[in-house]
C-alpha cells in the first residue's frame, strides 16, 4: 500500500467503478440520469488526466517542453466541457475522442520525460476500460436497452 505503483493501481481501477455503475444503472432503466452522470464523471476524469501534464511542467520550469506541457494540460478540460453541451450519444463520442487524444499525448511524453515504469501500462489499461465502458453506454443508448 505504501508504494506508489500499488496506490496508483488501486486508485486508478477504483476510478473505473462509477462508469461500470452508470452502465448498470442505464441497464436497470435509469436512462438519461445514468447516461448524464456517466458522462459528467468521464468529463471530470478527462480533465484530471490533462492536469498530469500541468504537474510535469511545474517540475520543469526551465526546460524547453514546459510551455507545451502547460498548453496541452488545459485542452482536455475544455474539450470535456464542450462535450457536455451535446446530447449523451454525441457527448460520449466526443469524450472517447478526448480519451484517445490524451492517451496519445501521454504516449509522446515517454520519449521526452522520465515517467515511472508502471505509468503507461496503467494508463493504457485504464483508458481501454474507459473507452469500452463509454462505448457500451453508447450501444445501450442507441439500442434503447
Amino acid at each position: 500500500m505504501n508504494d506508489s505503483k500499488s496506490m496508483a493501481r488501486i486508485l486508478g481501477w477504483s476510478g473505473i467503478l462509477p462508469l461500470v455503475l452508470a452502465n448498470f444503472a442505464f441497464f436497470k432503466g435509469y436512462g438519461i440520469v445514468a447516461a448524464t452522470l456517466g458522462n459528467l464523471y468521464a468529463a471530470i476524469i478527462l480533465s484530471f488526466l490533462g492536469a498530469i501534464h500541468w504537474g510535469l511542467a511545474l517540475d520543469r520550469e526551465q526546460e524547453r517542453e514546459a510551455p507545451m506541457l502547460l498548453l496541452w494540460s488545459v485542452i482536455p478540460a475544455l474539450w470535456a466541457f464542450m462535450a457536455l453541451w451535446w446530447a449523451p450519444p454525441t457527448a460520449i463520442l466526443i469524450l472517447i475522442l478526448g480519451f484517445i487524444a490524451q492517451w496519445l499525448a501521454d504516449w509522446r511524453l515517454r520519449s521526452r520525460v522520465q515517467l515511472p515504469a508502471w505509468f503507461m501500462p496503467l494508463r493504457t489499461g485504464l483508458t481501454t476500460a474507459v473507452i469500452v465502458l463509454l462505448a457500451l453506454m453508447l450501444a445501450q443508448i442507441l439500442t434503447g436497452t
Partner: protein
Amino acid sequence: MKRPKTGTLLMGLFLLLWAAAMVGLVVIGFTNIQPAGIGSSSSTNSAPISQHSAETTHDE
C-alpha cells in the same frame, strides 16, 4: 508548403475551445437555451432516453 508547428496547432485548438466555452456560457446566461447534455427540467425523470422523446406526445 511549410508544415505548421505542433505548438501553433495546439494554441489554435486551445483558442477555439476556449472561445466556444465563453460563447456557450454567454448564450446560457442571456437566453433560456439549455445544453442537451445537461438536460431540461422535464428530463430529470428516470425514463430511458429512447422513451424520453416519446413522453412529449400526449395520449388522448
